[in-house]
């Protein structure tokens, strides 16, 4: 790419080593144009997402769900749509939501979720009885291991410094086993894998997760025995939104965030496929020319 010799190159040879910035321009347009037009692509829900949805749907009223915000602004465009959809579903199911973060960058995103989704859409949901923001705590997987034994050792106060013993929904919380479901958002480390290894498996607590598309292949092997379900990237989010729309008709016709991303993703896939095809056609033309040239030289 620019570092090879430039003399006597045919057009085919030059195109094979096309300046990568040209590819970048096409991909940029493929992503931006559908977003600008607000195009939406609905996704059918696959079993790995549907079982996740059904698990939350089957939780009795007042069940305790731990939501761990293990991501940052980098992956928020992919992960936030999942968070929003799951928070909405938990609120409809009247589950008690305990929000925390293994990543320092997750703390602000917890606050954003509360301000932008929970408070405006579910005004009856009360802090301290229906949901709580426990904030970020250091310790990575070590934190999970301690929470499995003694929750209040690490979370003696919530994110704003209030003593958790004075918060009604923290009364019967001794350790992670007191939760009916753990949901981790974020495919990095620590993240879903650590929740499975250090909480889900040893404590026999159901764990579900939402992660970026690139991290999803690493986590698929944990489904269905160790993960109740997995949302992988924008597609996973869009599938979950589809399940939510099917179960709660009030969301019908609403352009949800995951669905908006899917059109960009689909178009950029097509662009990449085009370039792969183009590259291979050039490669085969080049190869047949080289062959005929070497045959001529052999004569």
């Amino acid at each position, binding site marked *: 790419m620019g570092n090879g010799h430039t003399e006597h190159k045919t057009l085919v040879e030059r195109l094979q080593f096309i300046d990568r910035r040209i590819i970048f321009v096409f991909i940029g347009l493929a992503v931006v144009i559908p977003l600008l037009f607000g195009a939406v692509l609905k996704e059918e829900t696959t079993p790995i997402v549907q079982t996740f949805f059904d698990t939350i749907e089957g939780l009795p009223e007042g069940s305790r769900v731990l939501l761990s915000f293990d991501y940052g602004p980098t992956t928020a465009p992919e992960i936030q749509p999942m968070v929003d959809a799951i928070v909405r579903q938990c609120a409809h199911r009247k589950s008690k939501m305990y929000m925390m973060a293994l990543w320092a960058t997750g703390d602000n995103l917890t606050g954003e979720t509360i301000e932008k989704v929970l408070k405006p859409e579910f005004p009856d949901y009360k802090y301290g009885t229906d949901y709580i923001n426990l904030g970020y705590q250091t310790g990575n997987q070590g934190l999970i291991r301690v929470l499995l034994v003694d929750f209040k050792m690490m979370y003696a106060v919530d994110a704003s410094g209030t003593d958790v013993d004075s918060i009604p929904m923290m009364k*019967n919380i001794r350790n992670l086993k*007191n939760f009916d479901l753990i949901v981790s958002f974020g495919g990095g480390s620590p993240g879903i894998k650590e929740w499975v290894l250090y909480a*889900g498996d040893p404590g026999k607590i159901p764990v579900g997760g939402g992660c970026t598309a*690139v991290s999803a*292949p*690493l986590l698929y092997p944990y489904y269905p*025995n160790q993960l109740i379900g997995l949302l992988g990237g924008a597609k996973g989010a869009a599938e979950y939104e589809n399940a939510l729309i099917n179960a709660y008709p009030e969301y019908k016709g609403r352009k949800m965030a995951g669905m908006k991303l899917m059109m960009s993703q689909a178009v950029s896939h097509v662009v990449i496929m085009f370039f792969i095809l183009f590259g291979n056609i050039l490669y085969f033309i080049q190869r047949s020319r080289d062959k005929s040239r070497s045959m001529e030289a052999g004569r």
Partner: protein
Amino acid sequence: MKICFNKVAALGMVLLLLAVPYSWLAAQAEPDTLIQDTTVTITGQEHLPRPAQFTFVHDSEGDAGGSITLKWTLSPDDGAGENNVTSYNIFRKASGESEFEKIGTVASGLTEYEDATTTDGVAYSYYILTSSDSVGSKSDISAGVVSSAQWFNSKDLDTFIIGIIICFSVIFFIFWAQKGKKLYLRKIAGLEAVDEAIGRATEMGRPILYIPGILDMDDVQTVAGITILGRVAKTIAEYDTKINMPVSRSIVLTTARETIRQAYVAAGRPDAYSDDMVHYLTDEQFGYVAAVDGIMVREKPATCFYIGAFFAESLIFAETGHSIGAIQIAGTAMPAQLPFFVAACDYTLIGEELFAASAYLSGEPKQLGSLKGQDVGKIIAMVVIVLLCALFTVASLTESEAVLSLANTIRGWFSAS
């Protein structure tokens, strides 16, 4: 002295590991608790669901105490009969207390609850209220059960046995190789290329960039990255090439400095070492990526090593490295990042090769022996996979319950849950 230390170490480990099953056997002598028959109390009126009944109320197995496991049979009206069960509510009373208190709710269709809020040494009794909307019927009240800590995590017995077999085989082959037995090791292209890659940088008069991943020293991949650094740095010292190692963790900073310094001492060139070879950037993932990319574009290293734990930054590093025409050698045990490295780098150490690299580069019989020990684990995995495939195939073809249960039992030994 070295051999003696290893032998004592191995003996100590074996003794400690043997102490575990012994303590487990001792713990098995503890008596079980039986469920007491009590009267059935029914509240409400007609169309009440019939109550669920406890089958098991017992101290939870293999834990550090503080937990009692409850199991019950489904109400005859859960999924059958009147089919009107909505949930099971668990009530608890500690000895000395007068009232039962609700401690949890479980969805219909489920038959197990773990009360993880008990205090060891206190007896607790329970009942289940099988609910249908606002009414419910009570089960028998269980006898008092006391939770306690166990000496062996019996749930992990399978992991323990397999772990022992693999550890013993690794230790065995370390000693076996030490006796001078010949070991075959397949060639790892990425490691064969290390000298050539360093030589190229020397010829071009450009530095070598070494990235040990973005996790701290408590991750074994970073440890592997640092051990490989030890070997690479020695060659770098011998060739008198420059190394630039930006890190994202402070402990990695100190460890890497010490490793490179020792490598320069071993190469007989301690004066050529400088602390500036390793420098800290930031703990923040993408801040680190931006800074490393900047270094790559400005300094144009001839060779880049990416050896350790990587996440989304793998492709960003590898593509930038490619754009500056560097030879790139990567190694990671993050399966999701391997495809990116394979696509964009010249050589990639895949998964276990990363951990084998240090032993491979050292060429020491002891270290190479440990790789042989790993193969025992692989053989176990392969045999079990083939056996289970065969058993499940036979079970589905013959519809034999016996074969199916045998297959499920064996699968249970190798399953996490």
